[in-house]
């Protein structure tokens, strides 16, 4: 069975005020070394069980994985190859923060076998980078990008955020134009969402965060979709755009609801119908590992119906939609039998389109994806 592998690195140089990911400001360097040895033990624990699985993609995410030294990154990949059965042509991605890259580190990264770089640029406007609490500026993004190209990265993604406090549609247009001028292979475009527990949330509750309204957000997203299409990007997932077959293979596994193993604090796994999550706090995570246990905090065995629903709402995120044949093969029942009423309703509302092979979102449906998904959930 094919499997994706995710490795989580929960440390950052500083915590951004909008971020609700499982990440913590790094206090001292030995936090990293003890965390890495815990990762090794967790990988070890899965090594035997997953011997037969073929790992086709690896993703190093965070936090900031590039807060590690080049040697540390190299060693981890070497260890993974030793313990798992990794496909020769596996797509291996690392998330990188422009402020944490230098040529030596990038060389070791590429030598480790990592072949895809995801740059957390977020904006090409220094004012917004500051508002977002990023440690880098526009110049360091561009420098990092060209350095990576020079060293040999042939698959680079750039992350961009929009609907930022005080941002106008023109601001986003300028940022996207700059991003495109670098000719990245892939672009992820997220709207800022204010999540409980973040600094932004506190501000928002006090009424001190002036965010674009629904109409302005629509405007930005709509403009971006057209602009990126004109520039030969394929809009293959709600927030993701790729050039010339450079779709993110690893992320596609998620959207196809395929199995993956998550290693590290707070990482999720989805194997044999179980979805479970590791302890989020690195200290608890390490403690569990030291006790010789798998560091699983909680999980659930998904019922057939829940798996069907998740497969639909994830699949609809993509350009490919949900295929009748794939659905039938996977669940033994036909998509149109079980959800015919919902599908017809959504088709009539102009949110869903169906042909002989699949259902997928219409353009209007992309903007109202959650409205569509709510119709499918119980």
């Amino acid at each position, binding site marked *: 069975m094919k499997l994706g592998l*995710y490795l989580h690195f929960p440390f950052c140089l500083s915590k951004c005020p909008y971020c609700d990911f499982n990440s913590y400001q790094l206090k001292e360097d030995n936090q990293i070394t003890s965390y890495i040895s815990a990762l090794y033990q967790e990988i070890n624990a899965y090594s035997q069980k997953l011997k037969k699985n073929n790992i086709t993609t690896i993703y190093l995410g965070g936090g900031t994985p590039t807060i590690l030294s080049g040697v540390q990154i190299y060693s981890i990949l070497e260890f993974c190859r030793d313990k798992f059965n990794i496909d020769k042509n596996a797509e291996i991605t690392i998330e990188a923060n422009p402020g944490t890259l230098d040529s030596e580190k990038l060389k070791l990264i590429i030598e480790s076998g990592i072949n895809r770089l995801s740059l957390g640029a977020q904006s090409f406007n220094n004012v917004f980078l500051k508002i977002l609490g990023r440690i880098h500026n526009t110049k360091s993004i561009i420098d990092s990008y060209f350095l990576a190209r020079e060293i040999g990265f042939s698959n680079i993604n750039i992350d961009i955020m929009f609907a930022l406090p005080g941002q106008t549609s023109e601001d986003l247009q300028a940022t996207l134009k700059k991003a495109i001028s670098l000719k990245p292979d892939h672009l992820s*475009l*997220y*709207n800022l*969402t204010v999540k409980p527990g973040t600094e932004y949330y506190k501000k928002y509750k006090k009424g001190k965060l002036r965010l674009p309204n*629904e*109409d302005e*957000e*629509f405007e930005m*997203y709509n403009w971006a979709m057209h602009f990126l299409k004109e520039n030969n990007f394929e809009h293959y997932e*709600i*927030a993701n755009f790729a050039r010339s077959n450079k779709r993110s293979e690893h*992320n596609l596994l*998620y*959207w196809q*609801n395929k199995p*993956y193993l*998550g290693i590290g604090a*707070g*990482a*999720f796994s*989805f194997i044999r119908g179980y*979805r479970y*999550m590791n302890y989020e706090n690195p200290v608890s995570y390490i403690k569990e590992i030291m006790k010789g246990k798998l560091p699983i905090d909680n999980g*659930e065995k998904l019922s057939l119906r*829940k798996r069907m*629903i*998740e497969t639909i*709402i*994830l699949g609809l*995120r993509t350009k490919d939609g949900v295929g009748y044949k794939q659905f039938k093969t996977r669940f033994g029942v036909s998509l149109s039998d079980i959800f015919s009423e919902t599908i017809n309703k959504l088709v009539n*509302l102009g949110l869903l389109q169906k042909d002989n092979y699949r259902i997928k979102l219409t353009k209007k449906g*992309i*903007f*109202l*994806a*959650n*409205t569509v*998904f*709510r119709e499918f*959930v*119980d």
Partner: protein
Amino acid sequence: MSKDYHCSIENIRNFSIIAHIDHGKSTIADRLLEFTGTISEREKREQILDDMDLEREKGITIKSKAVRLYYQSKDGKKYILNLIDTPGHVDFSYEVSRSLAACEGALLIVDASQGVQAQTIANINLALKSNLKIIPIINKIDLTSANPDRVIQEVKSISEIKEEEIILASAKEGIGTSDILEEIVNKIPPPKGNSNLPLRALIFDSVYNSYKGTIVYVKVVDGVIKPGMVIQTMSNNIKYEVVEIGIFRPKMQPIKKLTAGEVGYIIAGFKNIKDTQVGDTIIDASNPSQESLPGYKKVTPLVFCSIYPIDNKEYENLKIAIEKLKLNDSSLFSEAETSEALGFGFRCGFLGLLHMEIIQERLEREYDLGLIATTPSVMYQVTKKNGEKLKISNPSSFPSKNDIGKIEEPYVKVNIITPSKCVGGIMELVQVRRGSFKNMEYIDEKILRLDYELPLNEIILDFYDKLKSISSGYASLDYEIIGYQPSELEKVDILVNHQLVDALSFIVHKDKAYTRGRKIVEKLKEIIPRQMYEVPLQATIESKIIARETIKALKKDVTAKCYGGDITRKRKLLEKQKAGKKRMKKVGKVEIPQEAFLGILKI
């Protein structure tokens, strides 16, 4: 527990405790119960447990409403004291008055730091109307903020009460309990009545118990009542055999007879709570007394609203739930009605806003019903041009403007006690609410009493909240109905997506119709979430549009990020949102949240 005994009518004392909310009524009652051995310290704790065990036997909290205490006074005489409990909110002053009718005296409790409040005055007036002997008590003298001297002056200034009559007490510390009991036996007169005359017993309350049926609370004025006797009420001829009679100690305790002056309960296989109207007189069917006791005015609901199930399938359950509540609450009025927008439901009448909120909450909590309650309204009197007179409590049945000759609306006399520095704000509030000033009196140099007349319609929603906020919580309010006065009123209709939502119609003074209509469509625009298409909102009077807003179509409803672990959380969030949408009422194609029906008038 003290030993039971009988005593002659001269040694019976029937009294109530009256107090403004939170002035310590129940703590005083607790002390009296403990002091007389009605409840021991040990039992007091146990009773809480009993409550839990006997929860299905709902009677328990109600049973303590009329408790018999045995008390031996300092001069050695033995007394029977009946403590008749009363509710403490202005909505229930009707119930207070009927409890007072079974008494000869009342303990008036005033908080030693808060002093005289609006309800204190209302309570004194009620007690005097019922010819009760008042025993004034200043409670909570142990508080550091207590100022008994000031409060004594306040009490003197609002009543004929003399300083030497006032007992200083702290129910919390048990100070003054013995003085209170001595005053009860020495100052309150015994009930007047004669056990040798034919039976006359006043019904002052009744409750429904699923095991025992209807239980009526009575005060025997003349004669004797025993199990086995055949009785009837003065107002109808249905005869019942008495199954059980008893007293509350505070649990129900059957006894052999109740004689003149005594207070207790009767169980007699009453089929329907309507057969035992509060205020009616119970008589001996074989030796009927010809003279009924002075009863009460029939209770009239003041505030009305419609209650609909969110899910139309729940109509039957709602119907059963309302009927059950009515068994224990004779003041709750209901009749079936149909709304074009909301389907089948009920028009309900309440004593006041608190009563309405309590009923709504009980329906939702105890019967697990999802409800939509429309904006409360009062009862209008409309005289049509053809002379026909209508009583209208529901805006949707308001006649067309052309047919209306005269409209009258109920007015109340409002009595506000407030620190003098808040008078400016209160005057402004009252003016906005179409009130007219009647009187102002100083209670002391810093506390004022203000009298106004206002339309009831203007105070039912948020007048009390506004008053509290203007006065930082210090002002208190009491009101009584004074009758109907002519008024220029109009009905405003609300259209959502061109469809009239009858449940949102309201009646308002013509000078306020435009502003109110405008504010409501603006508010609805905020409350109703964007739908798949544009939704126009209109306020109209007689089909003429007075205000319009548009809810834009939903444009963007998408979460950008969704990777590995996000999916479980995201699915759960979508499920939760979906459940939330189900709680909305679908009117035509538009989903309207519950709060739209009640919340919008609080503007």
